[in-house]
């Protein structure tokens, strides 16, 4: 094993103008500014030159260090503006670092955008050659791979149609197909899987996995945590231009990243400190989402983890008609289900007592979809009255489900739908 990519103290600085929206200057501005400065200089020849306050430095990357070994599949994650794209641009030599050094061994192909250089007027066939050449393939190489590319893209019938008449799906398929058949030693891929339909994405993931299994090095940027987890052998998390975490445990990096990234949802633990909600029948003291060891979970939860709802309540007047439980609501405010302690056959109900009662209820795994949820205590005296009517704001906690949707190689990303159960399929 040897390092194929070594990044040492890599930094990239951009100068950002505050007033002008264009990144390019116009000659007029240069001349005007120059004249202005000259005029100032003539009036106050000994004054120190003024700082141009409209410009500010912005470090897109600052002192980034890491190594990538031959055959690694590295996922790069981070929020928007964390420097992911800048890093890829430097690695693919599109832009130059301000300081620092990168050493790369082997041929690099980067795919920062699907279909770069495609010309709408040219036919599919012509675009395959053009795009291949832009990505660095030789004509002979493209010829050799031509049939494979066409088959992968499923555009045989439309090879001689200008791509401007293609559906957007066909366009993207063709573009990815060309890129997928590059045979570099190092493949750099930006979030390209965000385009195309689910089936196409699956195909892309399959192809990338194949590339990885052939022992090539892959660097992959994505916001799709499932894809990263499925594809990568190690991960780097960037934050504000710096490496925050890097580890061969992809799951660990993702978990740390997600933990720091959800400030908006409800707390996962609720403690009745002010002794509100007081009533004689059922007085909640503590509500939490806990793991099997009994600890409250504050981070996003994988969908394949066992989690429990923990309720602690004070009962001073035990009523046989007491029913309590929770309602689970998703981020759109849709009630997914309610559950009461009296839902099962009567002989299996938990036996409550006067005083402090602690209960836990296991939530089924592989049921919810990815997203944020809130869970609220509800309860009442059966057929008599509500104690906590749903939606009236009793004790409430929140949690979020991220990742662990399925073990299937075909299921990488959040699917549409409120639930995402993994059901059992068998021959009859």
């Amino acid at each position, binding site marked *: 094993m040897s390092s194929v990519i070594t990044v040492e103290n890599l930094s990239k600085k*951009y100068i950002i103008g505050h007033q002008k929206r264009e*990144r*390019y*200057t*116009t*000659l*007029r501005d*240069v001349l005007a500014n120059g004249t202005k400065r000259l005029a100032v200089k003539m009036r106050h020849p000994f004054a120190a030159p003024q700082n141009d306050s409209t410009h500010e430095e912005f470090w897109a990357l600052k002192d980034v260090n890491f190594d990538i070994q031959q055959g690694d599949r590295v996922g790069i994650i981070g929020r928007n503006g964390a420097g992911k794209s800048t890093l890829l*641009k*430097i*690695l*693919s*030599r*599109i*832009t*130059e*670092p*301000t*300081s*620092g*050094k*990168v*050493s*790369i*061994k*082997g*041929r*690099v192909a*980067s795919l*920062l*955008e699907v279909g*770069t*250089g495609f*010309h709408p*007027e*040219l036919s599919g066939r*012509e675009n395959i*050659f*053009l795009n291949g*050449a*832009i*990505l*660095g393939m*030789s*004509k002979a190489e493209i010829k050799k791979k031509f049939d494979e590319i066409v088959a992968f893209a499923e555009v045989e019938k439309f090879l001689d149609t*200008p791509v401007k008449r293609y559906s957007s799906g066909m366009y993207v398929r063709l573009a990815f197909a060309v890129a997928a058949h590059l*045979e570099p*030693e190092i493949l750099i891929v930006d979030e390209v899987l965000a385009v195309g339909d689910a089936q196409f994405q699956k195909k892309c993931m399959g192809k990338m996995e194949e590339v990885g299994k052939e022992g090539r090095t892959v660097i992959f940027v994505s916001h799709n945590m499932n894809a990263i987890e499925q594809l990568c052998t190690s991960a780097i998390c960037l934050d504000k231009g710096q490496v925050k975490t890097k580890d061969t445990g992809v799951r660990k990096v993702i978990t740390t990243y997600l933990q720091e990234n959800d400030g908006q949802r409800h707390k996962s633990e609720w403690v009745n400190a002010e002794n509100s909600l007081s009533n004689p029948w059922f007085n909640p003291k503590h509500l939490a989402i806990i793991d099997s060891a009994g600890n409250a979970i504050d981070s996003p939860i994988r969908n394949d983890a066992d989690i429990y709802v923990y309720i602690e309540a004070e009962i001073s007047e035990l009523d046989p008609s007491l029913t309590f439980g929770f309602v689970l609501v998703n981020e759109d405010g849709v009630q997914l289900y309610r559950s009461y302690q009296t839902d099962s056959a009567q002989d299996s109900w938990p036996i409550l007592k006067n005083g402090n009662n602690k209960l836990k209820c296991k939530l089924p795994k592989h049921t919810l979809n990815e997203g944020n949820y809130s869970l609220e205590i509800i309860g009442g005296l059966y057929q008599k009255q509500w104690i906590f009517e749903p939606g009236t704001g009793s004790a409430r906690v929140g949690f979020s489900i991220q990742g662990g949707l399925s073990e299937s190689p075909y299921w990488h990303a959040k699917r549409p739908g409120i639930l995402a159960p993994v059901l059992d399929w068998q021959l009859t």
Partner: protein
Amino acid sequence: MSTNQATLVIEAGRTERHYWRDLWRYRELFFFLAWRDILVRYKQTVIGIVWALGRPLLTMLVFTLVFSKLAKLPSGGVPYPILVFAALLPWQFFSSAFSGAGDSLVSNAGMISKVYFPRLVIPASAVIVSFVDFLISGIILLGLMIWYGFAPSLRLLTLPLFTFVAFAAAMGTGLWFAALNVKYRDFRIIVPFVVQFGLYISPVGFSSTIVPEQWRLLYSLNPMVGVIDGFRWAILGSNTRLYWPGFLLSFTLVLVILVTGIIYFRKTEKTFADVI
């Protein structure tokens, strides 16, 4: 593919080392881009490549009419259409290559910000596109010579040399303007103006012999004067004399523009992706 490849080092101010080798490796891209531009230009046109013949032909007719029939300028014993066309050939090559190259980087901005390749490929392929048009226009000249029964002398063999000078002039100015255009979009407006203005101050519709002798050297500060005179000298044969001091001045200027153009282009190239 061998695995013991040389290590590529990316560092501030250090992309130079493999530049010319990379340029050679990307030579196919260079032709593909030129091929794309030629293909695209005549897609969905009815008469297609015939346009490449039509434009210079019509210009030649107008020039002959205006300068020969109306202004009655001397042609020095050569059929006026041939006199005009021998100049129109390099001029049209220069003007289309210059404006094509000048605009090329900005119109390929998408590629520049998403893929690596030596950026020199883009303006160079724009020049190649115009060169193909130049070769096609050459057919018209051949036709004219046959029509007028005009036999060229052995000097015609020197034409590649003058073509090279025209090439260098187009490339040099094209590189300058392409690189400047990335940063200062004003040059997008300057380019058509230069082309239009250039047509009037270059001896396209008339022979440069009508310029008074004492002004000839000054006139040759326009590099295209040397190129056009050279073309006429090579094509029209013994009917013309080449004003050598003027030609050498033009030639030197062209070389200076080309070399500084390459240097400036290489210097600013690294920031293209950030600025464009």
